[in-house]
Structure formats: structure tokens, C-alpha cells
């Protein structure tokens, strides 16, 4: 009974300590340079002041991030299945998948803008690109790492190729898939914000958090800039929490990475 309480108290205490240090650092600055590090209270105030534009920007970024992330999950799963078919296919295509990952987002952004226009579509497309790689690498690895003994068991009982895939290789790859998913969920919101800075637009109410940050910076609204950063963090945490929940639901019965409940 003590443990769950500790799980909440520890991070809470660390959070309070962090805010105290932050406040201390703010106060230690001379009066006229305090604008460089707004106080926690100041940031909170900015968040309230700009709540309408921040909420709208958060929803826009979340939409782009989720669309890109979701698309990456679907496409990477299909591609992983194809890649798992033979080592030749992997050898042929891996270098190009790597190349896609090596290209920096700010370089890809203008290309996306040319193709699909600035705004949500570009943000989703760029988020897709950045989430895709960890997913495809991990899922493919999982699909080709099936226990050889289990493969033989299936062979012995005359499994068809689709049965091999659906009943054996895909479930066996799930832990790997979720490893990729957690990495992707961490970088997808970052990707969406960076994409928004480079390929966002304020047309309609299309601006996301990246676009907001650029505007606040240009207006020297530093407290609001910090508030945008905090909002971005919260968004990332929520996406991660969602992924952890789904992973827990699918794996905790059987996978060794989760504690046994019957001990």
C-alpha cells in the first residue's frame, strides 16, 4: 500500500524542488535581465492570458502529429511485413529508408510545402517521415526474430503462410513494435512542432505550437514562449501515456517486461 503513494509523492516532490530552483534562478537575476527567465508564476499567467490561442495551436499540432503518427504506424507495419519476407528485400531497401531518416526536417519542409501546401497536411507528412523509421526498424526486427522452435512447430502442423504471419510472427513481434512505437511517440510531437515552424501557416486558424513559438519570439513575449514550451511538453507526455497504456493492455498478461501479478 505504501508503494503507489511513493510513486506519486516522489515525482511531485521533485517537481516542487524544480519549481523552487527555477524561482530562485529567476530572482537571482538582476531586475532588468529577469525577462530572460520568466518566473513559474509568470509563465502560468502567460498561459492563462494566451489560453485561447494556445489551446487552438495545441489542437492543431495534435491533429497534425496524430495524423502523421497514425499514418506512420499503418504504413510502417505494411512495409515491415514486406521487408520481413526476405533478406534480399531488406538489403535492397534499407539504405533508402535510412537516407529518408538522415534528411533533416527543415530541408524536407519546403519540399512538402511545394507538394501539399503549407499547414496541416505538411505537418502531418513531416511527422510521418520522422516517426516512420523507428517503427519500421523495430517492427521488422521483431518479425524476423521469431523463435525458430515455434516456427518449426507451425511448420509441423502445416501452417499456411498467412497463419504463420497472423498467429505467430505478428504476435511475437508485438514487444518490438511497442519499443518502436514509444520512440516514435516521443519524437512525433517534436517533429510536428518543428514541421510547424518550417511549414506551418496562420491561414484560417491553422497555426500550431511551432508557429505560435515563432510569433511569440518575434514579439519578444518571453513568458508566452515558455508557456508554449510547457504546452508542447504536456502534449508529448499525453501521447506517450496513451502508447504506454496500449502497450500495457496488449503485453502485461504474458510479456516478461511486465511484473507478474500472481507472485
Amino acid at each position: 500500500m505504501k508503494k503507489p503513494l511513493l510513486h506519486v509523492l516522489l515525482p511531485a516532490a521533485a517537481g516542487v524542488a524544480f519549481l523552487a530552483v527555477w524561482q530562485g534562478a529567476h530572482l537571482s537575476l538582476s531586475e532588468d535581465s529577469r525577462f530572460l527567465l520568466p518566473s513559474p508564476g509568470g509563465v502560468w499567467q502567460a498561459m492563462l492570458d494566451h489560453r485561447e490561442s494556445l489551446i487552438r495551436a495545441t489542437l492543431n499540432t495534435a491533429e497534425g502529429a496524430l495524423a502523421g503518427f497514425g499514418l506512420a504506424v499503418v504504413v510502417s507495419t505494411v512495409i515491415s511485413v514486406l521487408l520481413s519476407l526476405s533478406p534480399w528485400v531488406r538489403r535492397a531497401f534499407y539504405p533508402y529508408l535510412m537516407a529518408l531518416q538522415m534528411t533533416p526536417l527543415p530541408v524536407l519542409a519546403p519540399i512538402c510545402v511545394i507538394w501539399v501546401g503549407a499547414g496541416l497536411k505538411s505537418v502531418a507528412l513531416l511527422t510521418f517521415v520522422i516517426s516512420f523509421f523507428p517503427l519500421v526498424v523495430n517492427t521488422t526486427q521483431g518479425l524476423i526474430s521469431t523463435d525458430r522452435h515455434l516456427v518449426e512447430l507451425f511448420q509441423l502442423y502445416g501452417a499456411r503462410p498467412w497463419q504463420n504471419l497472423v498467429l505467430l510472427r505478428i504476435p511475437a513481434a508485438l514487444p518490438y513494435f511497442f519499443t518502436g512505437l514509444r520512440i516514435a511517440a516521443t519524437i512525433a510531437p517534436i517533429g510536428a512542432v518543428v514541421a510547424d515552424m518550417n511549414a506551418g501557416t496562420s491561414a484560417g486558424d491553422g497555426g500550431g505550437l511551432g508557429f505560435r513559438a515563432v510569433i511569440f519570439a518575434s514579439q519578444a513575449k518571453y513568458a508566452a514562449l515558455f508557456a508554449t514550451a510547457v504546452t508542447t511538453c504536456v502534449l508529448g507526455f499525453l501521447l506517450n501515456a496513451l502508447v504506454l497504456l496500449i502497450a500495457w493492455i496488449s503485453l502485461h498478461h504474458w510479456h516478461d517486461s511486465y511484473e507478474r501479478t500472481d507472485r
Partner: protein
Amino acid sequence: MSAPNLVEFRDVAKCFGDGPAVLSGVNLSARPGDLVALIGPSGCGKSTLLRLVAGLSPLSGGELIVDGRSPGEAAGELAFVFQEANLLPWLTVAQNVEVPLRLRGAPAAERARARERVLELVRLAERADAYPRQLSGGQKMRVSLARALSVSPRILLLDEPFGALDEMTREHLNEELLGIREATGWTAFFVTHSVAEAVFLSSRIVVMAANPGRVHAEINVPLAYPRTAETRVSREYLDLVAQVSRVLRSVEDATGPAAP
């Protein structure tokens, strides 16, 4: 001549790639109802021999006839119990047991009937909803055995199924296995490192020699079935254990590494 052979090796040879011969000149047969124990030094090709029967690996020479057909064609008649339980960790005991019938496209009702029957046989009916990681080593092996029995095989291949278990559990499962055999009656090849286990279970013991793997001796076990805990202390049984141990020792001395 009585019933024809269910499994027959004729001068069978096996090598992997261009490696050395793993099996050479193997002649061996089993009639319906035989329980043949395979025993011999490590690496002499016992597992390989079973894998040939199961059609998991092709022959390199000679002929192997299983139920009048080639091993691959007869796959529907047999089941394999591997050294490790090899359960799918994401499925419950019940679902694991149903895997072979599911792969063969059996309807749900038939699968459920088979599942209930075999879980009853291995006395694990009340653990049907457990996941493999919640089971003990012996329980996992029993699930593995139940899974093999679910297809009502005519030929059962067992590769040291109880090798990793303690003496007590192993003896207990041996008795259980013979009990199930009374009820279902299959022909079996049983690989083991334990002379006692070989004598207790089998109707015939094949002692193999290594490099290349071949049949060194065949010893009949004329003990009457059903065999029970009583059998283990009988004069006849103890004499046979001593005899098989001597033969096995002579093979291991001849082919094993020189003693220091």
C-alpha cells in the same frame, strides 16, 4: 510377419550441407504400438533422426517410410514434443493446446472437445486460463504433451521431453505418459539420456553410436504393461537397467573423448 511397419528407416544417411555424415546406414523400424527409446552419446543424431521422421529436415540418402508414405506426406499422422515446452507465451493454456487443430482448420466445436479431452488427460483442466509464465516447468511440459495429443496422432515423437525436470516429476510424468498410452495407443519414438526412463517406458531400446550416428544395438524390453511404481523395484527391471547401462558405456567409451 504380423502388422507392417509404421515407420521404417532403410539405410538412411544424413549430413548438413557439405558437413560430415551425421547419420549413416541407419536401419530401424517400428510396428504399430511400439514405444522405441533412442539413447546414445550427445551429438549422435537422435534429435536429427526424429526431425527426419517429422519431415522437418530432408534425408541425404536411403529411404524413410512413414505410414506407407514419405515423411512430409505423413505429417498429418504425427505430433512432436520438443525438449523445451515451446508454448506461445501470449496464449493461454487452452489456446496453446488448440494451436495444432486451429492450424489444420478444425471447427471451434471440435477444437473445444479435443482441448477438454487432452487437458483432462494431463490433469491440467483447472489451469486452462493460465498463461505459460504462470506454470511450473513440469506443468508446461504437460501442456506441450497435451498439445501434441490434441491431434490424436498415430505417431508420437518425443525429444527428451522431461530432460529438464527433477527426478520425482519425471518419474511421475513417465507413469502418466504410460497411462495416457493405455487410453489412446500411439506408436512412439522417445529420445532420452536416462537409462532408467528408457527401460521404464519402452518396448524396445535403440542404443546409438556417434561419428557417424548409427544404430549400435537394439534391446527388447519384455516387461509387461501396465508398468507402475512397482515395476521400478522389480528384479527384471533392475537387470535391464544394468544391461543397457553396460551397452551404453561401451559405446560412449568407444566414441566419446578419451578419458584423462
